[in-house]
């Protein structure tokens, strides 16, 4: 057994034994999120749309305000006090991300707008350099549109083929089919860590191992994973890892692409502009070193600092405990709605994160969403940017409740009452 595997075993055990939050801890956590005090349509807000975006703790809001009030300046450019200070804070945020993902080096952390831009960066830079006519990119049937369309654009341009590994009725990847689609022409595998529409946790470690046996690099879309579980990119040995700040309690407009240094170093730039160059003449420019090569223009400095604050907040509470709390909510919710006649849960993978997608009678999810909203309950309804998943299950849409660290069992009781209200209206 390798040291990494032993660590993983220990990690899993820790996770299994991790307990969620006590009532008083939960109360304290909720108090950290100012928006949760709000009433909606006269009812206390029950925010169950966390897979779309999470709410922000005071620590994040304060970090952004403090930055603008005391530190704001452009980075990497000024010799003056504020610029140096802003540069330092921006660098510190990058190191926080590095630590959070356990990357080898901070230069492997590229700041981008979000998971979407991270994936586009890899498709446009790595993909255009490495994928040629007749080659293949392999994804799964449960990807978010942002992990489908960038590859389609690439494949269309290059005359390459997009291959899709199927999912089964439970919403799990059919691993054997995935393995057989991983062929001699596969140049890249892109797979979601956790499905936003179904909650399925993919066996990314096995996927990466198998792909690496065949010398194929793997991009993991971690947008739905990082808020709920400890991610260690060295342990996973993934080649790229993408996530969005706003889903992990950070601000919108900031996200991360992790890439192995040797890959990033060999990749051509993504966008051109200031900061990404070492020198420019009209004949030729030489590029800055990574990660700056991929960060053209003035970045979202406040966003990066806010993200750093969010990751510290999450790490201080501990992702094992956050995960355990959300797992408890998922089990409680699954049990509670299973008792509702006419309700069917979509996505019943053995390993699931805090996502509860469902359909109810013949009532369209939109109508469910509107009625729940009147009760102060925010859920997502629709195809969740995963139309192929909906097609796979032969449904146009689902209603989706998704949980975060600040949600409570009482809120799930409210959800169940709301669903009964839906039945009343539709009689």
């Amino acid at each position: 057994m390798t040291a990494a595997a032993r660590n993983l075993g220990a990690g899993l055990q820790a996770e299994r034994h991790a307990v969620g939050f006590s009532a008083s801890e939960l109360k304290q956590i909720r108090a950290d999120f100012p928006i949760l005090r709000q009433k909606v349509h006269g009812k206390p807000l029950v925010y169950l749309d966390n897979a779309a975006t999470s709410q922000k703790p005071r620590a994040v809001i304060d970090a952004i305000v403090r930055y603008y009030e005391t530190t704001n300046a452009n980075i990497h450019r000024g010799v003056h006090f504020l610029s140096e200070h802003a540069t330092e804070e921006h660098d510190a945020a990058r190191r926080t991300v590095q630590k959070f993902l356990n990357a080898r080096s901070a230069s492997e952390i590229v700041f981008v707008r979000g998971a979407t831009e991270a994936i586009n960066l890899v498709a446009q830079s790595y993909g255009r350099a490495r994928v040629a006519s007749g080659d293949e990119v392999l994804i799964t049937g449960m990807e978010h549109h942002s992990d489908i369309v960038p590859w389609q654009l690439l494949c269309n341009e290059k005359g390459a083929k997009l291959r899709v590994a199927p999912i089964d009725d439970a919403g799990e990847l059919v691993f054997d089919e995935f393995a057989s689609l991983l062929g001699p022409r596969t140049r890249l595998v892109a797979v979601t860590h956790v499905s936003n529409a179904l909650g399925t946790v993919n066996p990314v470690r096995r996927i990466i191992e198998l792909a690496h046996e065949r010398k194929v690099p793997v991009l993991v879309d971690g947008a739905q994973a990082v808020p709920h579980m400890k991610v260690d990119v060295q342990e996973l040995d993934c080649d790229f890892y993408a996530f969005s700040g706003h889903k992990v309690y950070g601000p919108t407009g900031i996200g991360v692409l992790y890439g192995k240094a040797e890959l990033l170093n060999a990749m051509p730039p993504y966008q051109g502009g200031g900061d990404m160059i070492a020198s420019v003449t009209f004949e030729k420019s030489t590029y800055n070193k990574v990660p700056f090569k991929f960060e053209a223009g003035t970045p979202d400095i406040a966003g990066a600092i806010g993200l750093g604050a969010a990751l510290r907040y999450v790490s201080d509470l501990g992702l094992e405990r956050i995960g355990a709390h959300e797992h408890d909510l998922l089990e409680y919710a699954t049990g509670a709605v299973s008792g509702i006649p006419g309700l069917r849960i979509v996505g019943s993978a053995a390993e699931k994160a805090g996502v509860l997608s469902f359909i109810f009678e013949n009532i369209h999810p939109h109508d469910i969403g509107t009625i729940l909203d009147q009760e102060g309950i925010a859920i997502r309804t629709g195809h969740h940017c995963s139309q192929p998943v909906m097609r796979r299950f032969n449904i146009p849409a689902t209603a989706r409740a998704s949980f975060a660290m600040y949600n409570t069992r009482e809120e799930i009781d409210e959800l169940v009452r709301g669903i009964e209200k839906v039945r009343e209206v539709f009689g």
Partner: protein
Amino acid sequence: MSDLRDLYQEVILEHSKAPRNFHGLAHANHRADGVNPLCGDQFTVYLHMDGDAIRDISFEGSGCAISKASASMMTQILKGKSRAEAEKLFERFHKLVTGEEPAKGGEDLGKLAVFSGVSEYPARVKCATLAWHTLHAALVGEAEAVLPEDE
């Protein structure tokens, strides 16, 4: 708080459960598809036009109660109407559901007035207008309806 019953009026629920003219149309000479990209609701509207007159009209597809009932009632009211009358009704209906002319309550819209409650639910305006946008596309010979962003 707006009462949900203002939105989900009995007539609307009834039409959503048993939509009228909900089928293809073998003798259609116009058709268009309409998709609400926000939620994936999609309808096809079929028209049998005789010159400028709508001889027959039907629809197929899937959507929420509001969009389905709206499509159903649209097909009912438009049978036998002229192209110009249909466009005029769309304009009036649009004003009703966006709340541009709420006070009048749309008395000239007949049964369609039950959709006045939609104006209290901005997120649902597109549901109510999807079939009408699709109708408009079919009338002007477009294969696909384009939904305006600012509706």
